[in-house]
């Protein structure tokens, strides 16, 4: 009888493992960022023409020390980036007067300058946007996919990383956090 119990237990465990593997679904993608609580990596981003008169040819993170910042990574082929774009622009217009600066980084999109311009025009971005042509800024920020958005406080510390499109709840909460 004891042996039977052992056999049943082993088979049950194996079946459990098998079913777990079968139905666990896509892996948990909520991997915490290594950057949270650390200084936002410095970068120099070549800007699109329309932003150059106000911000210069290149946008340098170091030049905006002390400014709370939202760094949004996107690509012209990424559908969720299209979904979140109007929200980003709306929040920028709402928060720019409070001293928050948004910056858009087109990444994983080598050479797609025209697609980038079309994207910017379509959503009427007023915050500076540039091209990370070799995705090196994306790697500096340990990007997994696009869109991803980093919230950086006045001290230059990354306080939050949003994976996937931003939502009004995230924007309200994290903008509040970096303005504190």
């Amino acid at each position, binding site marked *: 009888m004891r042996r039977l119990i052992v056999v049943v237990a*082993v088979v049950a465990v194996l079946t459990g493992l098998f079913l777990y593997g079968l139905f666990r679904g896509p892996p948990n993608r909520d991997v915490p960022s290594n950057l949270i609580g650390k200084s936002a990596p410095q970068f120099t981003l070549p800007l699109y023409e329309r932003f150059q008169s106000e911000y210069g040819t290149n946008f340098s993170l170091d030049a905006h020390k002390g400014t709370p910042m939202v760094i949004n990574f996107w690509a012209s082929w990424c559908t969720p980036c299209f979904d979140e774009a109007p929200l980003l622009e709306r929040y920028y217009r709402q928060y720019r007067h409070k001293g928050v600066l948004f910056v858009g980084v087109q990444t994983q999109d080598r050479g797609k300058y025209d697609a980038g311009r079309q994207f910017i025009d379509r959503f009427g971005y007023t915050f500076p946007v540039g091209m990370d042509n070799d995705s090196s800024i994306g790697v500096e920020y340990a990007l997994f996919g696009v869109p991803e958005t980093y919230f950086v406080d006045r001290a230059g510390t990354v306080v939050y990383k949003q994976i*996937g499109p931003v939502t009004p709840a995230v924007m309200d909460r994290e903008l509040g956090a970096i303005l504190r």
Partner: protein
Amino acid sequence: MKRAASPAARSRRSLLVAALTTAALLLAGGSLAQPAPAAPTAPSAPTAPSAPTAPSAPAAPSAPTAPAAPSGSAGTASTPAQAGGGSDVEISDRAYAIARELRCPVCTAESVADSSAEIAGEMRRLIQQQLDAGKSKEQILRYFRRRYGDWILLDPPKTGLHLVVWLLPLLALLGGAAALVLLVRRWRAAAESVPDAPDEDLQRVRAALDARKDDT
């Protein structure tokens, strides 16, 4: 009526249990060998989405200054990297070998060397760039680990808690082998031993044999 299992049947059952346990341990080891869960939000495959309808482009005097593209192959032999979105660059065997140790951030269980994702192509370029700049393999792997953490390594490092992942399959194999040896010994012992029978039955057998002798 309840019947006791024969020693052979018991051994076979025990063998089955040992085999299943070994398989379970190996399975558990295998699943642990995939350390952190996979990357977040892999972007949808880089097939172009519906192109945004573009209003006329702004008067654009110049395109953004793109950073200089890294030089291509530099090593002795070159391995063409798999073409991906913008990733059709030739990299050296050394760069390819390093890329094989790194996990493509937007893929599932695919190395940077094998992936055709845009980011993987750019990571291959970065590796080649850093090799060209005279960096060692360890320095390049450290560069990626500092940003992505140990997660970026396809093979977890053989230190600290990660050692469990490496040792567990070995322990499972050793445990399985030990269980097999023990079982085979018990099996043999059972086969060699005279089965116990109640005296009553033995007397009946003897009587039957004697009766047959008398008949002949």
